[in-house]
């Protein structure tokens, strides 16, 4: 029984029909736009638009929290740090020993958090609605990246999923040998390091067997054809257009409302 974390059922959401490159392009435009300014208006506009797009990627808010909580946690930590360290302008909101928060510092903290979320969310949307195989096809066929590299990475990705189950099995196999009997923090660290080493050995051995399989199937020896053709369709125009539109709207809103705060 294998726990293959990467072999989730293929997404059937509308966005999954778009070419991965169109989605990546849209996310990239948005990221660049948001990197230009640190203010809460542009970040809020972008974030609101992204949340509105979620259903098209087949994501519910709950699923988003499950997958995206590290980004949320990082954004909150960033907000706290900025509010603590940003220039103390405006009225004092809270002062307790060395902790001093003012209106100005809290505003920049909020802006940093919203911007972090607005930049991180497109990544989650693209990942959730893109099959790794489709991405590899697009990278090799449309971007003309070397197919040896792209398909090698794709095959390796599948093995990464198997490592989770392998780690579990190794843990049990080593307990059956008595590894980890030495209690205490140091003993446990040594046991975990040993297990990580064993996992690495197994991963390399499996990878070299897989390499023989791929070579025996004629991989990497010459020009190849593609059974799955990576194509652009009208959806891709919509997807990329939406990325540009949201970016423009976010920046325009910041300029109009006077919060434009360029980084450079």
């Amino acid at each position, binding site marked *: *029984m294998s726990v293959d974390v990467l072999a989730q059922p293929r997404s059937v959401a509308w966005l999954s029909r778009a070419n991965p490159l169109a989605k990546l392009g849209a996310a990239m435009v948005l990221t660049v736009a948001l990197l230009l300014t640190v203010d809460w208006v542009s970040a809020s506009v972008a974030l609101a638009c992204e949340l509105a797009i979620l259903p098209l990627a087949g994501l519910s808010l709950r699923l988003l929290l499950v997958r995206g909580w590290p980004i949320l946690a990082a954004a909150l930590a960033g907000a706290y740090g900025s509010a603590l360290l940003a220039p103390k302008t405006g009225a004092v909101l809270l002062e307790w020993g060395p902790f001093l928060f003012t209106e100005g510092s809290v505003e920049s903290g909020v802006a940093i958090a919203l911007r972090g979320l607005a930049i991180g969310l497109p990544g989650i949307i693209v990942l959730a609605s893109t099959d790794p195989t489709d991405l590899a096809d697009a990278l090799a066929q449309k971007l003309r990246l070397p197919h040896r590299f792209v398909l090698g990475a794709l095959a390796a990705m599948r093995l990464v999923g198997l490592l989770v189950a392998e780690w*579990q099995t190794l843990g049990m196999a080593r307990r059956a040998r*008595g590894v980890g009997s030495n209690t205490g923090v140091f003993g446990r660290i040594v046991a975990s390091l040993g297990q990580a080493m064993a996992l690495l050995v197994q991963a390399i051995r*499996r990878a070299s067997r*897989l390499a023989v399989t791929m070579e025996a199937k004629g991989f990497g020896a010459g020009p190849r054809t593609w059974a799955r053709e990576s194509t652009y369709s009208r959806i891709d125009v919509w997807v990329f257009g939406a990325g540009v539109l949201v970016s423009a709207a976010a920046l325009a809103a910041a300029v109009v409302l006077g919060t434009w705060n360029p980084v450079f």
Partner: protein
Amino acid sequence: MATSQHVVPAAVTARGWGWQHSGRPHQAVRGLDLDIAPGERVLLLGPSGAGKSTLLHALAGVLGSDEEASEFGSLLIDGVPAAAARGRAGLMQQDPDAQVVLSRIGDDVAFGAENLAVPPSQIWPRVAAALDAVGLRLPLDHSSSALSGGQKQRLGLAGILAMRPGLLLLDEPTANLDPAGVLEVRDAVLNTVAETGATLVVVEHRVAVWADAVDRIVVLAPGRPGEGGGVLLDGPPATVLAQAREMLSAAGVWVPGHVPPTRPRTNSGGGELLLSADDLAVSRQRGRRRHPAVPAASNIDVALQAGTALSITGPNGAGKSTLALTLGGLLPAAAGSVLAAEPLARGAAKDPYRWKGNQLIERIGTVFQEPEHQFVTGSVLEELRFAPKLLGRGGDRVDELLARLRLEHLADANPFTLSGGEKRRLSVATVLAASPQILVLDEPTFGQDANTWAELASLLSELLDAGTAVVSVTHDAEFTQVLGGNRLELGLPIEAAAPASAPVPAAGADAQSLRGAA
């Protein structure tokens, strides 16, 4: 379908061919002269170290990347050096997990054809025909990770078939499979060969699986000095098996109709109760408060006495290994309980899962299916000393085990460099070094040659008579027959499942035997 899939079968010619892997003192194959006619079906036999896999890999053109190695003589496919005959040969290996490249089965089958630059319009019809030929009728976007071992091997075969090779090379394709998987894969291979007319070369220990299906058996001699090298015997299956029966079974080959002699059990009386399971459910998942684990098997009752054997059988996915791990104190019970009786617990907790590592190994020893998972040091001797050192005991048992399992000459070798049979013997020896009262083994005889098999069965029979309890997950009917004891069959409707209180008698007596029947 037969006409559309037909290929031009390949001819193989070897003249004085030899191969020496880099850093090895001797040639793996030496002085090989061999002709295989187009469309012939050949079973390749030989003792371990005879270079059977090396020959298959050379024919498949995957030996070339090793620049330090040296090649002698010539090895041709249709008159072209094998390394240059791209796409003419398809190779299938032993490990089902190393067979699959991509995550959807349709893409995986198409992979080889894509690499050979087959026009895309022809690939999908080929994929459909190949999946049909191996009997894998699943949607093209089915996950390739969610397949059984036999299905993965058939998927690999379909991928080879879609390349339309004239030569099919199978390197122990059924060694890691249960009996149902063995027949599944063999039938898929024979069906494929019948449909395409391709030449077939198969390496396998279990002669009975292929003897009726091949035209010819070729026995290779090891390439070491003093062993002659080249072809030892060559002819129709019946002739070769008649001529070389003794020699082949001495070399560990499973000859049809011959079960290697093993030490018989001398006492069958059970001792005191060691371990019991009561209404047990087992699962690899950790249950959480709101999402209890989905059990792999449930309603299991076991009472294990000293000096008795228990064989766990059942179809793929019935939870046999999960049960073994739970009884071995490696997984917590998902429901119900596993209880160590006082003679086993000796003051420790009742639940084996709560024991510390050093408490566990001197009470219950578990031998995993894959020996490599359990190697924790850099040499055979260190492996054997590991448990006694943990328990603060002397190492007198170590030398005894080294000798008993014929590992003395390998004492300084790295465990990962051993052969399959040696790895299996070592993994059993390392667990025995702690002298556990209960031994749990997961498919201990998978892929083993007849010699290792007999040694293992004899050793366990000896341990049983001396009072050790043995639990084994196994499909091997002869093996369970040697050990005796009870059988627990999982995966049946509840009313037909056998609780320990009403065990199925005479383990394996009614099971289909692949080896015994010719």
